[in-house]
């Protein structure tokens, strides 16, 4: 399982330069032979252009969104009625485990890395990422992880079935399929760590002249914070899964209580990653929403500095709350109290962000197009998820609802209503930049409204059945929950169908949409000041940053100018001032 992916990567040429180096051949730093896309085929080869990699990442992640969504549909089909209909208990456990693992490790985390890969270097005025070859390797590690997870269904004994949390000792005594998870996570984790390092170095060293930290767009801040989280936290999940591997394959006794192992240790190490991971899955979305809201409301972000500081506060606090996942785990009871308090405190910086976004909307000139609708949908739905989060932080309530459908509702309000909505907002917003085409606005709005309505119809009732006593991760349930489950299943099928609108819109618009102008949104940030799609090396002239990124409404405000020698050139004139007609 380890060897095959490496063979695959070597075959692709991901390690060519390592071999050149080892063999003493010259490694040319300025070798651009694998840079930029020449045709659609280029997207299926390792490429060092951050724009190509960004698109590879994004499309690849959406593929897994649909695979994971399909598994959700299967689960909901089984759960539509009590009793056993379509799949047996083992397959069902496999389905929710693979569903969650794929959506977390192969969709949410990488799709954010993909969007940022495309826009971040452009936004900060860099020609590429700091380590283009590492960037390519990070991407190609992902299909290895994805294929492993899906292939687990063919393992003897079925796919891994102990949830995406893989709690020991269930995982250490499971059939072979479990190892597919254990090893796939190593590849996905290595990929995110490498990307995060790449982002950190890029943001720190490759900003355009004049781009101080406090002139960076918030998307850059968000990815800076996320990357810090990734670099510090991800080794912990790698470790937890190596422990499982050693227990499983070599009979170590890390988690074998009879032999002196400690079961709770697994949970501590696991959540020490996986709590920060929920911010890894959310902070980049905060960045996207900040970009979209400022541009679409035509106002500067309210309280820019507090927005940046609250991100950093979340990074620091994010490491102090992990055991709130363990209130009923049987750990020492005093730990629960400080964890409850820190968890409540982390809601404060999050609240600051929500209120600042609201204030940004206030008295703006709001364009209610698709990206904006998703951003506003995010604001309301994420608030729901945040509120149920605070409820869960309160120990007495968590004792009752922990491990019930209330949790499932909460997860989906933050991951679907939160992260996925920001991802949709971002994909629509940058679609013209990435593809050079416009998406279909009507279909986009239809997609938003169907998603919004059926999302709530699917997940809101889960709060009720959860509090009412339905445990999570079950293929069968007591008859009293039958009515709600049928409603939920029907709504979820509609939700599944609504994603087809999105898929159609993306494919059709990419192939035949109207050509996009350089700056259709009259945005100030740098990525919109170059053509759509951008030139191979991003900027023909090095931009110089002379002001903040969101100076909408400030007469004559400029964020960046191109080439210090020729600030007056037509192309350099920024859009977004009062008097000016839309660019082009």
């Amino acid at each position, binding site marked *: 399982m380890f060897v095959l992916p490496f063979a695959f990567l070597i075959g692709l040429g991901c390690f060519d330069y390592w071999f050149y180096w080892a063999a003493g051949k010259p490694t040319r730093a300025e070798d651009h032979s694998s840079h930029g896309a020449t045709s659609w085929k280029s997207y299926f080869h390792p490429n060092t252009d951050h724009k190509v990699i960004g698109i590879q990442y994004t499309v690849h992640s959406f593929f897994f969104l649909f695979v994971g969504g399909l598994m959700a549909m299967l689960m909901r089909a089984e759960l539509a009625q009590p009793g056993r209909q379509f799949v047996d208990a083992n397959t069902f456990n496999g389905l929710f485990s693979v569903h969650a693992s794929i959506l977390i490790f192969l969709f949410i985390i990488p799709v954010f890395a993909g969007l940022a890969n495309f826009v971040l270097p452009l936004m900060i005025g860099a020609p590429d990422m700091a380590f283009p070859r590492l960037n390519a390797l990070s991407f190609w590690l992902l299909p290895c992880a994805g294929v492993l997870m899906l292939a687990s269904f063919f393992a003897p004994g079925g796919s891994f079935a102990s949830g995406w949390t893989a709690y020991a000792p269930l995982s250490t005594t499971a059939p072979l399929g479990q190892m597919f998870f254990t090893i796939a996570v190593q590849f996905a984790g290595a990929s995110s760590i490498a990307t995060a390092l790449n982002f950190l170095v890029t943001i720190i060293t490759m900003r355009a002249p004049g781009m101080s930290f406090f002139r960076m767009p918030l998307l850059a801040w968000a990815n800076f914070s996320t990357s810090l989280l990734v670099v510090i936290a991800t080794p912990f999940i790698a470790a937890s899964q190596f422990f499982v591997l050693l227990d499983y394959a070599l009979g170590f006794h890390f988690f074998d209580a009879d032999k002196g192992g*400690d079961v709770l240790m697994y949970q501590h190490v696991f959540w020490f990653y996986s709590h920060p991971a929920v911010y890894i899955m959310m902070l980049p979305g905060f960045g996207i929403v900040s970009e979209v809201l400022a541009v679409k409301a035509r106002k500067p972000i309210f309280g820019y500095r507090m927005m940046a500081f609250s991100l950093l506060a979340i990074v620091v606090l994010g490491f102090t709350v992990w055991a709130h996942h363990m209130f*009923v785990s049987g750990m020492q009871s005093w730990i629960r109290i400080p964890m409850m308090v820190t968890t409540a405190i982390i809601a404060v910086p999050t609240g600051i962000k929500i209120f600042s976004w609201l204030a940004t909307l206030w008295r703006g000139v*709001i364009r209610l197009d698709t990206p904006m609708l998703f951003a506003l949908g995010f604001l309301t739905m994420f608030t729901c998820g945040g509120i149920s989060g*605070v409820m869960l932080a309160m120990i007495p309530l968590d004792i009752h609802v922990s491990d019930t459908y209330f949790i499932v509702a909460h997860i989906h309000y933050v991951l679907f209503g939160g992260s996925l909505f920001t991802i949709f907002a971002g994909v629509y917003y940058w679609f013209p930049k990435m593809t050079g085409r416009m998406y279909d606005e009507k279909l986009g709005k239809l997609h938003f409204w169907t998603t919004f309505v059926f999302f709530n119809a699917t997940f809101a009732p889960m709060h009720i059945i959860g509090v009412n006593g339905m445990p999570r991760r079950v293929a069968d349930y007591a008859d009293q929950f039958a009515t709600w489950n049928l409603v939920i299943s029907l709504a979820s099928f509609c939700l599944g169908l609504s994603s087809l609108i999105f898929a159609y819109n993306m494919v059709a618009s990419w192939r035949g949409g109207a050509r996009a102008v350089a700056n259709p949104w009259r945005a100030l940030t740098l990525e919109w000041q170059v053509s759509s799609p951008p030139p191979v090396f991003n900027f023909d002239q090095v931009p110089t940053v002379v002001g903040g990124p969101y100076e909408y409404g400030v007469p004559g405000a400029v964020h960046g100018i191109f080439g210090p020698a020729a600030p007056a050139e037509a192309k350099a004139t920024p859009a977004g001032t009062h008097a000016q007609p839309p660019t082009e």
Partner: protein
Amino acid sequence: MVIVGLIASVLGIALGLVIDWFPAQGSEQAKKIDTFWDVLIICSVPVFVLVTGVVLYSARYFRMRPGEENLDGPPIHGNTRLEVVWTAIPAIMLMALCTYAYLVLHDIEKAPAAGNERQIQVNGQQFTWTFDYNEGGKKFSSAQLYVPEGESVKFNVKTRDVLHDFWVPAWRMKIDAVPGITTNYRVTPIKLGTYPVVCAELCGLGHAFMRQTAHVLPKAQYAAWVKKMSAPAAGGAAAGGAGGAAPAVDAKALFQQGETQTGATACGGCHKLADAGTAGGVGPELDQVLKGKDAAFIKESILNPNAEIAAGFDKGIMPDTYSKLLTGPEVDALVKYLEEVAAK
């Protein structure tokens, strides 16, 4: 707008309080937790209304009108006073909630002021619970949970294999059963009746079917039940038991509940059998696979389950310990029972 917001909040809170969220309020602990929930609803609804209200208001009144395509909003960069306010108010609210939560937690976990507290040991195993009692020195176990009304009980929770979680939704309390340690919580049941016992921590194939029943009895009835359970005859069936005096085995009960003395798992935890009313979906449905099979096959399947596996199922899932945990008469009774049922 403020008025609309207030009305919406009041309506939202009313709705939140009217919805019948919880199952039966079966314990002292449940009362406190349910009140706590009401407070959370009262605090949460206005927050949600505020955010949604501002979004809807902005979408309606600040929306771009035709002719405003090139207009920008006023360049407001911030307002320190406002920012302090919306940092401080949530912080104060949250700290108040934490304090309240702490008090409730203290309340629901504290030991009863006077008297001896009953202790019951809860054993989780794939995929059933057994309950060990120690009533005035008399020890016995049961596959069903019985407790008297109105007295505090402390559950000491253990597991024989992987993690489980002992949860009675009507009592609101739950805790993991963790290999290597004993966890616990206490409840004071206040409502007579029967309530589901649920496993809330994924424990493998049969996790969904790991459901049993808790019975809350009046004190006198509970005492009678204890007497019955601790009388030598009731528990003696499994012990030695070769003598002709051993009472007849109730095979159906054995199928539904397992052998609590030795810890043999209930067949019905995993197998569906219409006659016994069990719904387990881990193993094959016995109504179907046993059609036309003879006693020898059934006996072999119980004692040596891996010898022949029904299509679509894997080896090693059904425990192979029944030959040790069940006595000869018990196995024979089961075989006879299943044969009869299958022939129907």
